């Protein structure tokens, strides 16, 4: 049996994703100061998700993670649907974390990222070096969560389309 960090069971996929997108957003998010409701993209994403991928088991909640949908083949397939590839690293880390999480429960799995707008899919498997990266990510999330004040926002190109934009830069 491998050793797993005990905090990891309370971390969700969005936290892992946000760690690679923006630390300020992550800080606000984990403190319940969420802005996703302000985003048309999030609305659109939800709508598309509700209207597509029929016949799958959708929004599968396992502990602290919530997977877009799951297919049962020779191993469990984790499917995540994303809008664009701009934040690909965050998407990959998010699904790697899901695989890692299921692993910790003794379930073997792989992941498939869907980019319906680009008509692309990408298969992801968890390698040994990814495990180390996930552990580091979890530690870093714990650290950001513990900060008394939010990390100072740093303007990047992606900020303009972020639901947290006004909060960060007003």
């Amino acid at each position, binding site marked *: 049996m491998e050793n797993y960090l005990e905090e990891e069971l309370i971390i969700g996929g969005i936290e892992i994703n946000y760690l690679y997108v923006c630390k300020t957003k992550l800080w606000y998010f984990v*403190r*319940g*100061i*969420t802005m996703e*409701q302000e985003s048309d993209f999030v609305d659109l994403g939800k709508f598309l998700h509700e209207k597509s991928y029929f016949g799958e088991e959708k929004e599968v909640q396992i502990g602290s993670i919530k997977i877009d949908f799951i297919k049962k083949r020779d191993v469990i397939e984790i499917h995540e649907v994303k809008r664009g590839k701009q934040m690909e690293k965050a998407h990959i880390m998010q699904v790697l974390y899901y695989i890692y999480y299921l692993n910790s429960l003794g379930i073997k799995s792989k992941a498939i990222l869907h980019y319906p707008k680009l008509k692309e899919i990408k298969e992801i498997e968890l390698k040994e070096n990814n495990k180390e990266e996930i552990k580091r990510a979890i530690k870093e999330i714990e650290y950001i969560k513990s900060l*008394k*004040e*939010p990390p*100072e926002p740093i303007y990047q190109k992606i900020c303009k389309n972020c639901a947290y*934009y*006004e*909060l960060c*830069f*007003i």
Partner: protein
Amino acid sequence: MRKKSLTLLSDGYLFRKENTIYFENARGKKPLAIEGIYDIYIYGKVSISSQALHYLAQKGIALHFFNHYGYYDGSFYPRESLHSGYLVVNQVEHYLDKDKRLELAKLFIIGGIKNMEWNLLKFKNKTKFSSYIEELNNCNKITEVMNVEGRVRTEYYRLWDETLPDDFKIVKRTRRPPKNEMNALISFLNSRLYPAIITELYNTQLTPTVSYLHEPHERRFSLALDLSEIFKPMIADRLANRLVKQGIIQKKHFRDDLNGVLLNKEGMKVVLEHFNKEMDKTVNHKKLKKNVSKRRLIRLEAYKLVKHLVGQKRYEPLVAWF
């Protein structure tokens, strides 16, 4: 889709049939596009079905009710979906800590005073209230802060009055009931502005009942009162000024009522049309590098407060630049 505030002035019936909300009045039945509604302001005598309320609650749409005189009565404030216990704790901490509370109370008043100054400048009067702001900085109690504010306001009304047409002098600020037309107009607009601020707070994680300048028990949504210090001069007074100086609102838009004066139905209609237009008007926001509506400025003020409360950035009240 840009959502809009819906105003119901006529009498009628608001109900739901399947997934559509209808408003039916003497002129007929009209479906309302729910996804396009931001909040609803009800001035008419309207019956509402519980099914309609369920649906509006589900969509997070607040309803605000006004009485026969056009004054705010109360809100249907749907169950909140945005929660941050962390922010609540910080909000309360800033209330309990005397210095932190005083700092915020002063900032709201400073915001109010600077916007009054700006208004006067727009009304061609160059008076500055810097001596009052100095006095404010030396206050050690909320009551002292309130006292300074009261004196500035009296002075502000006096100076504003010098620019107003004879038919629409404030003379003295009177409420419940307002004694003349200008007082009636200002009260009506303030009464419409207050729930607009409530809607904005509803859409944040801020707890609207914990406030700093006003006591949390003063009114149900006392934080909206705090914020109104800034938006009353910026939105309500400016609009009142324009309506009477451009002759859009005239004597005929008022009626006598008992010991006071009130807007009549037609007057309310005209004022509300202009108010809604005003809230949708956009200004260029330099910091955000985009256009934002006047309504959105209220939300941004709430965000600034959030940042102050979590220790990211000291709150600096909005002063109009437009």
